């Protein structure tokens, strides 16, 4: 586990699958073996390039691709051994090369900083006229894994198909035992969102499985500031009336 007090963890409340930040990751399976070339983008700007070898001789089921690290904006931390380094002939680790099994998954995530990245990927030998895979348009089989920290009510929308849902995150309770978020909830996103409403505990994971083309946007509609917010603003007995002059 990495340690951070990244301010963006607490200030970026909403999530967008087309602009990946610390609390949202896109999971994509390549399916077909081959050599792939990916580009990390921030808006329309290209930030970094990476390569993925999808190799059926490699048993790696998950490769974590840290977009912040590729783009050079991740805070320096202890070296993390990538799963992909166990495959391939190259003994020298290259931080922009990854290897995964065709039925495995690439997890595009952001380990720190402002984020807001998207990724485009195309086969190295692919026809340029074939449209590249773009995380701004998630494909069936992709998953957008989200963590909602800020308590409140959120809207979930698929911007491409006008589907909408709602998620409520409860306020954390300081109890007699350390709180541990329960297992993540799973919902499906396509031309509709199933189930349409879900309730989450704070920091509980939410896996949004894409059933048809989607760009998922999660926005805070109504914040919950906890017991302090629900308390009356002051005790009537302590109010001091303003003397009326004249």
């Amino acid at each position: 586990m990495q340690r951070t007090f990244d301010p963006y963890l607490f200030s970026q409340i909403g999530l967008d699958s087309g602009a990946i930040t610390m609390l949202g990751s896109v999971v994509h399976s390549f399916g077909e073996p081959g050599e792939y070339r990916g580009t990390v983008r921030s808006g329309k700007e290209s930030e970094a390039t990476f390569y993925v070898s999808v190799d059926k001789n490699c048993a790696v089921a998950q490769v974590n691709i840290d977009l912040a690290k590729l783009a050079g904006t991740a805070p320096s931390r202890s070296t993390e051994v990538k799963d992909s380094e166990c495959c391939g002939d190259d003994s020298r680790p290259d931080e922009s090369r990854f290897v995964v099994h065709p039925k495995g998954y690439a997890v595009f995530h952001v380990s720190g900083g402002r984020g807001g990245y998207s990724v485009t990927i195309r086969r190295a030998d692919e026809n340029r006229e074939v449209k590249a895979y773009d995380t701004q348009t998630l494909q069936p089989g992709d998953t957008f894994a989200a963590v909602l920290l800020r308590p409140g009510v959120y809207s979930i929308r698929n911007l491409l198909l006008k589907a909408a849902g709602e998620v409520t995150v409860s306020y954390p309770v300081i109890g007699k035992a350390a709180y541990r978020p329960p297992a993540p909830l799973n919902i499906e996103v396509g031309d509709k969102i199933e189930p349409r409403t879900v309730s989450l505990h704070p920091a509980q994971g939410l896996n949004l499985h894409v059933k048809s083309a989607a760009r998922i946007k999660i926005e805070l509609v109504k914040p919950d500031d906890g017991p302090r917010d629900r308390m009356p603003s002051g005790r009537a007995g302590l109010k001091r009336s303003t003397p009326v002059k004249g």
Partner: protein
Amino acid sequence: MSHVTIAASSNAFVQLFNALRDNFTFSKSDSGNFGPFSASYSIAFHLENGSIALHDDNTVEVKHVKVVWDSLTLNVCFNVPGFCIPSFCIVPDPWNGCLVGFPGFCVGGPICAPLNLSGLVSDVSELSARLKPVYYVDPARLPGWSDLDAEFNGHPNKWKIFVDPVFVHVDPIDVPATVANVLENLVKDAINNMIPGWVPGWAKDLIWALIGPVLDLVKGILGIVGSIEDWLSDLLNSVFDLLGILETAIADYFASKYPIFAFEDPYPILAASAGLIPVKIPIRNLTATVNSKEMVVLADVG
């Protein structure tokens, strides 16, 4: 038969010992890294009270001397995994649990809890010693000096009689149970200080919910199975070996640092006056013993 006999009654010996005891002070600091945590200490103590008995077997027995900790501070530092987003499962694997997981990360950092245990009192439960005369040649004395030159320059040789401990036993430092509350509050303050001011209230509540009871967190990180006070007592007494340090410091001080009695050699029997030099006699073959009534110092002249 010896030429010189000096005797000090047991009451006089007690007075001499009190001066020896009251002159003792000791201070030390050190630190260590113990894997999940690091700790440092700073100590300073002096001695008070106690009873002394002289025995016919030529031993001095000292009991119940209080070790008063003028300073006993312990700084315990460790990493707080305050707020972790666990690596939850995204794609489950029916055979292997989880195929793909969310890359987790923690909010946290190093904190230190400075425990101040100054004012605690330990006990030198028993100290048994014999008297040991040592001939002391002043290192500042120049080789060409006569005994008179050495006296006039304030660097005469001396006979020193030390209380040489055969064994010293100090009771373990008894850490009070209330230290658990003190540590809990210190860790709470340290965590609050670690959380930046800009972190919103809901996030602080989430962090504290994930941290849970502070004492449980501390016990988990430090690997404490029993009580906090027992763990601290073990850390001080055994891991940092303050007991050993304390016993060694006392034994070393008594045996070689501060004599219970000392006098010049040659011993002045007539002071210089009216232009005459002082009359001094050399002391040889000095022995110092005790019996139940007194301390006896025997010596030859020559």
